[in-house]
């Protein structure tokens, strides 16, 4: 099927089909009547293609439909486990497999500092689990790669250690540790962990606006959009968003320009800052390093900063953010952001919306998207924010010596925050991005390709405005008076 080319994995494709069907009926106002028909549309039967039987497949689809409709309201986390979809993968850790040939070298034994390896009468290795600390050295040195790590992909993906197990062995998310980054969502091979969707809210906003007559619905798109929808032109994506019924489309990168301008100013005043753009990174600090909260920039995120500006110019506006991020779905519900952002969608959900209205964006004329500078646009990739803050300092005419640390992924963030908490030297500006690669690595991206970074840089270079000050000049009309 040609549509699969739009996604990295078949799990994403399945999730998309559910979102598309839910959206299709929501536009028509026939969703309630068709709730039980959607699973049959997606899995017509009679042969099962994913699970033991079509009945289980459809039962799981019913759960996916609930999540597409907003999910469990009693669970504050935007990331949810579908219990019946969880395959209860093995969690044994390092284990010796049948490939062990009982060799003479016993490198595994020599490298094990815990003395956890012993041998049976056939010279085959065994791991004493009471001694093993799962360091993995034995697996590395085995010439037959006979030692395997049985680790659940979700647990492996979750670098903040928020995933455990229920008594029935299904995956369980610890909401006190989860930062809603979505790494597990993207990595679970069974699609058993997924992000709640607010797609119905977006559709309601559009429908109730009566073609933007009652109020206007603005789409603000994250700069990583430039690396997505690779099968069409960006201008066609913009036309497509307007065809869905949005009044207009604005670059969130303009919000990033605002952030870069004021965050660099804040850095000069305070001398040491951690960034506030990535909601997963900010949540991580709040949960794991509460003493470092004082260093978090007081600036809103680019999404919230732009939403705030739009609502100042148009108080009745509804602002829908479309991006790569599941954590943004958590951020927009925070009291400090709620007034500015009404809904958050991912690129996956945008694709589902296009197809729910049978909009083939490749056939559309190209519209324009140009509000931000190069620096606002490169926020989408790791290191971009640091570059933008350096530029901001330059534009303020400051001689502040920037020592930026661009933390690429939450593990790198952790290392930098640990140093900061122990007063070890770690520069004076910590750029924290929970996803590896930055926002282009977000769980809500359609694709996570090698070329995405260069696409973002290319898009940055195409910006009409070359400096941050020029890009935000049009916003400062009131304060200049």
């Amino acid at each position, binding site marked *: 099927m040609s549509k699969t080319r739009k996604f990295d994995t078949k799990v994403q494709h399945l999730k998309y089909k559910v979102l598309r069907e839910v959206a299709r009926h929501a536009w028509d106002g026939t969703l309630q009547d068709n709730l039980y028909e959607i699973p049959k549309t997606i899995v017509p039967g009679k042969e099962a293609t994913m699970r033991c039987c079509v009945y289980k497949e459809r039962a799981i689809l019913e759960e996916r439909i609930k999540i597409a409709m907003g999910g469990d309201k009693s669970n504050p986390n935007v990331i949810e486990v579908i219990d019946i979809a969880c395959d209860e993968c093995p969690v044994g850790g390092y284990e010796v497999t049948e490939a062990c040939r009982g060799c003479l070298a016993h490198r595994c034994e020599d490298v094990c500092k815990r003395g956890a390896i012993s041998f049976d009468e056939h010279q085959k290795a065994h791991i004493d689990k009471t001694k093993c600390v799962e360091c993995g050295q034995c697996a590395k040195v085995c010439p037959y790669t006979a030692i395997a790590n049985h680790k659940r992909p979700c647990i492996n993906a979750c670098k903040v250690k928020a995933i455990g197990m229920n008594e029935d062995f299904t995956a369980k998310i610890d909401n006190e540790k989860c930062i809603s980054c979505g790494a597990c969502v993207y990595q679970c091979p069974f699609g058993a962990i997924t992000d709640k969707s607010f797609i119905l809210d977006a559709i309601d906003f559009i429908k109730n606006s009566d073609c933007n007559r009652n109020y206007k619905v603005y789409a603000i798109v994250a700069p990583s959009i430039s690396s997505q929808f690779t099968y069409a032109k960006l201008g066609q994506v*913009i036309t497509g968003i307007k065809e869905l019924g949005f009044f207009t*489309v604005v670059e969130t990168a303009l919000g990033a320009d605002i952030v870069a301008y004021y965050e660099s100013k804040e850095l000069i005043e305070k001398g040491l800052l951690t960034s506030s753009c990535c909601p997963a990174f900010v949540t991580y600090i709040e949960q794991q390093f509460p003493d470092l909260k004082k260093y978090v920039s007081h600036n809103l995120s680019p999404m919230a900063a732009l939403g705030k500006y739009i609502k100042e110019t148009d108080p009745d506006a509804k602002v829908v953010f479309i991006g790569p991020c599941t954590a943004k779905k958590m951020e927009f519900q925070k009291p400090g952001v709620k007034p500015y952002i009404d809904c958050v969608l991912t690129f996956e959900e945008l694709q589902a919306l296009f197809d729910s209205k049978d909009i083939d964006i490749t056939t559309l004329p190209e*519209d324009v998207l140009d*509000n931000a500078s190069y620096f606002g646009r490169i926020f989408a990739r790791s290191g971009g924010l640091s570059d933008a803050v350096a530029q901001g300092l330059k534009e303020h005419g400051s001689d502040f010596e920037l020592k930026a640390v661009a933390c690429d992924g939450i593990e790198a963030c952790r290392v930098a925050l640990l140093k900061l908490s122990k007063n070890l030297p770690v520069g004076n500006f910590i750029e924290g991005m929970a996803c590896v690669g930055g926002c282009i690595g977000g769980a809500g991206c359609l694709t996570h390709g090698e070329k995405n970074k260069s696409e973002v840089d290319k898009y940055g270079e195409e910006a009409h*405005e070359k400096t941050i000050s020029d890009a935000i*000049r*049009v916003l400062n009309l*009131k304060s*200049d008076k």
Partner: protein
Amino acid sequence: MKVKVCIGSSCHLKGSRNVVESLQNLIKDNNLKDSVDLSGVFCMGRCKENGVSVSVDDKLFSVVPDDVEDFFENEIKAKL
């Protein structure tokens, strides 16, 4: 008097920043800061026009950056 300049993508590419800057300077030079309320707005739905969309109270205009001074004299200063 309320003057709104479109800063949506299409007008931005037609030079809305230049229009904004010129208007800001003209308002300042003519000491009209208290009588003219200048603001930005994303899209006025007239993307096909040649110039940047500008509204003066509720009247719509299309202004190319080179004509800002004339526009200011005729539609803003003269109407105050």
